[in-house]
Structures are given as structure tokens and as C-alpha cells.
């Protein structure tokens, strides 16, 4: 039986908020197809010419490629180191937990500006040339806490009884991990990896300070923002949004799969909206 309430005021606020969130983005996508190239109403006609122009531009292609490379490396690194760290953090001695957690989660609370400029100065001090590598290093620092948040939440929701049952039936710790723990958490981890990729792909605030001569997609947009006023920005924005949206949807689907699998096993309810 449902115990959801009627709450017209909060419903109205929610719907208005959704409108507020999506309208500007929809408008950006819309005008990427604008035939005349003006960025105001009236909307005169559809055209793909801006897409053709942009995809034909070598600077765009290389920026896109660089973003993909960096994001992929960051995603893989985060998955490996992050999964290990999540296990380490959740099962380590209680005394170590607070300092480790602080080290892992603090970057979220710190504005990217500070992380970026600290790294800029640091790399200069160490005589390290700014390049895509330094970008990748910086992205890991930024992305890692988000991955950890998701991974820790997933580990917290594991039922220890399942692992105990496996041990009881004779499985070694590695076997327990492979046959009991991993099957339960891999969807969430996959989703978190997609999230890591998306966060890196989108990142600008820190990238601005630690990037060398190469460009990433957000840097490309930034340079266009300063100089040009035509729908090519809309095109790049749309490409960026589409990629991230796809990845976000992937992450969400994995999260749902994990949740459904868990509820099938343990009988809980997503959101606990019903008693």
C-alpha cells in the first residue's frame, strides 16, 4: 500500500525547477541547427552547416580526441585505484579511517580554482612541463573523490552475511571477492567509471591551469567563447552534452541494475518510499 502524500506546492516547484534546468540547454541545442547563424529569435530555419564546419575543423577534432584520451585514462586509473582504495578504506583499522577519508574526500569541498593553481605552481617548482599528462594527473585528483563516494556507498550496502556464508562454505578471500562481492558491486562500479569519464571529459576549471599546448574539448569551447559569436559553440556544446548525457544514462542504468539485483536478493525497496 502506498503512503505517498499529495503535495501540490512542492510538485509545482519541482516542475518549474525542471523547466529552469532544461530550457537553457534545449535552447543551446536548438540554435546549433540555426540556418542563419544568429543567436536570437526569430528562429529561421534548420541547417547542419555548423556541424559540418565544426567537424571539419582540425582543431575541434584534435580537441575531441585529446578529451577522449585523457578521459579514458582517467576512467581506467580511477576504476583500478578507486576500487582498491574503497575496499581498503572500508575494511581498514578504524584509527586510519578518518585521516584516509579526509585525504580522499577533501578535494570535493575545495573549489577547483585552488586545486588548479596549486598544481600549476607545483609543476613549475618540479620543472614538469604542462601537457595532457599533467591534465590527466589533475583530473584524477578531481574525479577520484566522486568515484569513492559511489563505491563506498555500494560497499556499505553489501550484506556481510553473504561473504561470511561464502567463507563458511570454504572460499578463500580472493574467491569470496571474485564470486560473491564482485558480482554484487560491478554494476555500480561500472556506473561510477562512466561517471568518472564524464567528469573528466567535461572538466575545465582545473584543466585551465595545468594544460599545455594541446587542447581539450572544454578548452576549445572556452577559446571560442572569447572570440566567436556563432552557432559553432552551440555545436560543440551539443556534442559535449550528448556524450556526457549518454555516459550519465549508462551510469544510471547500471546503478538501477545494481539496486534491482540487491532488492531481488535482500528484499529492500529503492527509495523506501513505501513502508
Amino acid at each position, binding site marked *: *500500500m*502506498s*503512503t505517498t502524500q499529495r503535495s501540490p506546492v512542492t510538485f509545482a516547484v519541482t516542475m518549474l525547477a525542471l523547466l529552469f534546468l532544461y530550457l537553457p540547454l534545449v535552447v543551446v541545442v536548438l540554435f546549433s541547427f540555426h540556418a542563419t547563424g544568429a543567436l536570437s529569435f526569430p528562429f529561421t530555419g534548420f541547417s547542419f552547416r555548423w556541424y559540418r564546419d565544426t567537424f571539419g575543423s582540425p582543431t575541434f577534432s584534435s580537441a575531441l580526441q585529446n578529451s577522449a584520451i585523457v578521459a579514458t585514462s582517467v576512467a581506467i586509473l580511477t576504476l583500478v585505484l578507486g576500487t582498491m582504495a574503497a575496499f581498503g578504506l572500508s575494511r581498514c583499522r578504524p584509527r586510519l579511517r578518518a585521516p584516509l577519508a579526509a585525504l580522499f574526500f577533501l578535494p570535493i569541498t575545495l573549489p577547483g580554482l585552488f586545486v588548479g593553481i596549486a598544481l600549476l605552481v607545483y609543476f613549475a617548482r618540479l620543472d614538469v612541463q604542462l601537457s595532457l599528462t599533467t591534465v590527466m594527473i589533475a583530473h584524477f585528483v578531481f574525479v577520484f573523490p566522486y568515484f569513492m563516494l559511489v563505491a563506498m556507498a555500494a560497499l556499505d550496502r553489501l550484506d556481510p552475511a553473504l561473504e561470511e556464508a561464502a567463507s563458511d562454505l570454504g572460499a578463500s578471500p580472493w574467491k569470496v571477492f571474485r564470486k560473491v562481492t564482485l558480482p554484487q558491486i560491478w554494476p555500480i562500479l561500472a556506473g561510477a567509471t562512466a561517471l568518472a569519464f564524464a567528469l573528466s571529459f567535461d572538466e575545465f576549471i582545473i584543466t585551465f591551469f595545468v594544460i599545455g599546448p594541446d587542447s581539450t574539448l572544454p578548452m576549445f569551447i572556452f577559446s571560442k567563447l572569447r572570440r566567436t559569436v556563432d552557432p559553432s559553440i552551440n555545436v560543440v556544446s551539443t556534442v559535449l552534452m550528448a556524450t556526457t548525457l549518454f555516459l550519465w544514462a549508462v551510469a544510471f542504468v547500471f546503478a538501477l541494475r545494481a539496486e534491482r539485483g540487491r532488492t531481488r536478493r535482500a528484499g529492500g525497496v529503492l527509495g523506501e518510499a513505501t*513502508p
Partner: protein
Amino acid sequence: MSSQNPLRLERITHRFGSVTALDDVSVEIADGELVTLLGPSGCGKTTLLRILAGFIRPSEGRVVLQDRDVTRVPPHKRPVNMVFQRSALFPHLDVRENVAFGLRIAGIPRREVSDRVADALRLVRLEGMESRRAHELSGGQMQRVALARALVNKPSVLLLDEPLAALDLKIRLEMEVELRRVHRETGATFVYVTHDQREALALSDRIVVLSEGRIEQIGSPDDIYHRPVSPFAARFVGDANVIPVHVRQLRGTLATIALAGHSLDVPCGPSVARGPAWLVLRPEIVSIDSRNGAGGELTGVVRDLAFRGTGYSYRIEVPDLPELVKAEIAATHGGPVAVGNEVTISWDPDACGLLTRNSESNDDYHQAVNESDERDEDAADD
């Protein structure tokens, strides 16, 4: 609380989408009564309670409280309070502020609030716990605070939604005693919901037995236990044996029935007619005898035996009967009969009852019943 006007539920029907949770339910509750809504999961009892509380507006029907139609009145404006299944104590407030909650909203002056809260806590025997928070209390204590929190507002009706369901058995039994005492001392009208028939029998002035959204029977615990009017009520309250039989002859208040190839005379009420019927046999009136040639009528084989402390529970397989016969034998009657042994079953004919039967359903049980009928008929024709 001295109003003579009762609480009335008039022809309540409620649907959730295509599912009918309650079908034309009407109940009148007198002032100061403890009425229990009893039934299995899904029978509609919680829905009915929530309609009383105001959280659900029924698809059809009215709720009348003290001659006032409150069907459309929202919960916070009804003079009705509820004790929730899991207490729902506010975690950010201590016990005193939890109990005082309703009074503070009503704007009651501070000194009166203090007095009434103290009285309420005294009523549920939790003096001294004012500064505790919910997570520092045991399950039983939480429910007592919830009870105080509801009663302190002096509601016209107190609703209790399976308040003991989440408690351990021992605490549950203690809380039953507390609830009876509180009910006596306050004289308030209680509407209680539970699926536990034992609890219902122990607490109630009257019981409303519900099944699949409909009322099966309303009556005092004694009425429902000794004089169930339907097979469902008989099975659900007291876990009686409900055996399909055939009424051969009727002579006044005596019916001759055919049962597993034997003939028996049992007293019956005026509604019983010739033809198919149900024999209601409470397990505690069944006697068994394992001696050979004891001259009994029905014989069977013991299929299950459980020790209950005060006695034994038997399940006995009798040929031609569709279900195992349940018997509760007190421990004073000698040692138990082991599983697999043959026994003779007998009972005092005046202690059993007959109910009318309509043979509509086509499920397995009723198939078996019909086959049993045919065997009875054949046997009688010999």
C-alpha cells in the same frame, strides 16, 4: 469523552486503481469500546484504519464521528489520534517534547502542557524518561511513548495500527496487559488493527473479522470464537477444523450428518438445511484414543505431533476427509501418541457446530470436498 454518540463507518468502499480494498463495509463503534479490526494481510483492515484517521478519502461511503461527517476532514483537523506500527517518534525531540507535540500545536499554555505530559507519562509508566531520545528507548518503551503522545490530546477515538507487531513475544504480552489497563483507566474508544487473533481475543470488547475487503463477522470475542458464522471466521479465529459434511435429516434442532462414511447427530441452528454443510470442530474439543478396539467411530493415523508445554498438538489423517484433523490434547491425558500410530477420534456432539455451505468454488480444496461429498452420498445410499 462522555459523548454518547458513537463512531460510525457507513458503507465504506475503497478502490486502489482496479483493486477493491474495501467493499461496502459498515461498522458502528460505541463510546469507550475497544474494537479490533482483525484479518489476514491484504484484508483491508489497515486501509479502513487509515480512512478513519483521514489519510485516505474513501471512494464511497461516510465516516461519522459524534454525528459529524468527517469523511473529507483532513487528519490534522480530526479529533482522532493514531499509534503507528513503528512508533514514528520524532528523532530530533526528546520524550517530553514528543508527547507534548500535539498540545504545542494546539497552543495549550505551557503549564497545562507540563501537567498533561506528566500525567500521560505516568499513565504509561514512563516517569523519569522525559529527556531520553527515541534511539535510547526499547521497542516497548517507544510504543508506550507513542501511546502517551496520542492519548495526551484526549482524542475522541484512538487508533492503533498493529502496535505490537514489531515487538518480541515477551514484550508483546506485557504490552497487552498495559494496553488493557490504559484502556480501562482512560475509558477512551480504541480501534485496534491486528492480524493476530490471539491478541484480538485478549484485548477486544468486539471484533470485526475482515477478509478480502468484506466483513465476515462482527461480535464479541466469545461470539466469534464459539459461534463463527462462516468457515473463514471459524478458521481464522481459534484455528478450528472446518469439515465438509452432508446433512441427511433434520429433526428440529438436531441434524443427522454423514461424515467420512459415518453418521452423527449434532445440534444445529435454524439456518441449516439438508444438503452440504460445514462442521466446525475446535481442536481442543477433539479427543483421541489409541487403544485398539475402543469402539470409536472415526479412525485415523497421526501425521504430526508438537509439544506445546500445556499439551500436545496433533494432526491426524482421517480417510475420506480432505484435510488433516487438528487436535489439542492437554498434557494431563497421559503420554503422547507417536507419529504413525492409529487413533480413534471423538468429540462431544453438543460442543461442535454446523454452518451452511454453498458449493461454488472450483479450486483444489473444493474439488476434494466435492469428492468427499460424493463418497458420503454413496456411503449413505448403501
